């Protein structure tokens, strides 16, 4: 079986499980949690394209998520624009914005890049809080309409689940294809050594900006979906803590692994549901996870599984 065939097989199996799950969970509140896992998976996969593939950190991705949500919210509630159109407008705006700021930001490396993206994230967070006339300020914005397809309105957990997960699966498929393409190989080359990649004829600067733009655009889409399914948004969801949470998801799952991003998103979304006490401890646990995973399991859970599987295989052969 070639790598492509195996990828198709795994993706199909994953997709089937995702599509069947709600039938088993009918009427269960967990369905609602799974909707959020979908949104967070979309965000984690988007960040992973940048962080895991191209090796460029962003500590401000919550800002793109928030921009998507707010642009959708403002266009639909204040200008009565159709939610789907608002969503497209939000994605285009954020994409253009990311492309423009991408050039100066991605010229920076390592710690400086982290600080610049962090600064961008905090500026946007302040803007969400201060432009009260548009965003409702710290108390948030309500009455955002649900998405609809003809007579089908996405306002229940079940309909939202399918809506979100169809797009999440598409995002994952796009990312898997991207990873296996020429672009994916070029990105990994950048990750390993920018100079070597440039010598091999990769337009490093442009490619980094492009992947940053794609990543921001997907995050904005996730933001629009969030706004239209929640129908209420507030700045607190789009702050620095959420940016760090997204990085944690990617690291826990495994840098550069699409299914790892799903795993990371699922774990970080489910943990607070199962452990009520977790609410007080969450940032302590995120901090510990970040340190411990980076020190002892740099490949994340998926990398850990792979190493384990390889070890078992070797033992069998020996």
């Amino acid at each position, binding site marked *: 079986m070639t790598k492509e065939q195996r990828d198709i097989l795994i993706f199909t199996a994953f997709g089937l499980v995702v599509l069947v799950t709600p039938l088993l969970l009918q009427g269960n509140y967990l369905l609602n949690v799974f909707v959020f896992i979908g949104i967070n998976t979309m965000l984690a996969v988007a960040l992973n394209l940048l962080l895991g593939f191209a*090796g460029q950190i962003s500590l401000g991705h919550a800002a793109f998520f928030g921009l998507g949500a707010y642009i959708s919210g403002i266009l639909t509630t204040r200008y009565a624009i159709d939610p789907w159109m608002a969503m497209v407008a939000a994605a285009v705006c954020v994409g253009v914005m990311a492309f423009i700021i991408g050039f100066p930001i991605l010229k920076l490396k390592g710690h400086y890049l982290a*600080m610049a993206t962090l600064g961008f994230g*905090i500026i946007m967070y302040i803007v969400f809080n201060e432009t009260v006339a548009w965003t409702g300020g710290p108390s948030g914005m309500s009455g955002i309409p649900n998405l609809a397809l003809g007579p089908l309105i996405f306002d229940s957990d079940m309909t939202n689940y399918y809506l979100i997960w169809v797009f999440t699966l598409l995002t994952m498929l796009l990312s898997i294809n991207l990873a296996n393409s020429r672009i994916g190989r070029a990105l990994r080359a950048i990750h390993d050594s920018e100079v070597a990649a440039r010598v091999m004829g990769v337009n490093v600067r442009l490619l980094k900006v492009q992947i940053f733009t794609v990543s921001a655009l997907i995050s904005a889409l996730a933001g629009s979906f969030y706004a239209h399914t929640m129908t209420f948004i507030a700045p607190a969801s789009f702050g620095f803590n959420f940016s760090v949470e997204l990085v944690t998801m990617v690291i826990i799952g495994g840098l550069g692994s699409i299914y790892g991003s799903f795993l990371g998103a699922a774990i970080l979304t489910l943990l607070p549901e199962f452990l009520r006490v977790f609410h007080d*401890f969450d*940032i302590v646990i995120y901090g*510990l996870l970040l340190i411990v995973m*980076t020190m002892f399991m740099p490949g994340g859970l998926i990398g850990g599984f792979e190493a384990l599987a390889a070890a078992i295989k070797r033992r069998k052969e020996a």
Partner: protein
Amino acid sequence: MENSDQIIQYILSGLSNGSIYALIGFGFAIIYNATGIINFAQGEFVMLGGMLTIFFLNVFQLPLITSIVLAVAVATAVGVVFERLAIRPLKNASPLSLVIITIGASILIRGAAMLVWGKDTHALPAFSGNDPLYLMGATMLPQNLWIFALTAVIIMASKLFFQYSIFGKAMRACAFNSQAASLVGISVKTMVLLSFMISSAIGSLAGIIIAPLTMTSYDMGIMLGLKGFCAAIIGGMSSGLGTVIGGLLLGILESLGAGLISSGYKDAIAFIILLLILFLRPEGVFGKKETERV
């Protein structure tokens, strides 16, 4: 006339905040020069300084000066533990891993502080009363004078330390070329540890002297830390005059911006300056341009 009084007032409070930013920036620069790491947890030591002092003062009823000494000692110990457990084991780690680890440490310390001291803001009494002083039509608290004086003392002391003491010289040698330093018998490991100790001590002192003015809470470290970083960036990551000027400049711009334009965007000003400098002159306003070797 009233307007110019106000501007003097803004500049005074800007200078006072700016001194704090300069001290925090110093902490960033000291670690950066010794290790090449930007310590994202720097702001948490500032928070620890303020919170620990209040803790010793209120819970153990110790005198202020003892509380301050103990707080600096504990914060420094946290810095040592952090270096030993999370930084030293990672030799030759990629900048990405180091960013993630120091962020992890930062939210871990912040979370622990939240669990121990709760989410409330706490106040530290001013070192010598709250009777305002008048200067050229502007009012000033005695605490502002403490801030100016202590900042000057700390900066002078570290200047003397780096210039004349054997440890200071060894640390500068490591910053310049750690391999060459280890060849002449300097223990680079010790110097890295020392840089974390000095930096957390200075950070916690900054947190202690600002606490009577701004109140202190478990989450105050992020913003102060980032602004300190901004000061260090303006100064070109040097632990010298550049960072001091950077901090004071940032403090004044911020306070003028908040007073004359909009107080809601006060915090944004520092980050806009930070982005502009990173975009236009990443080596800092006072730094020298470096070429990268590959």
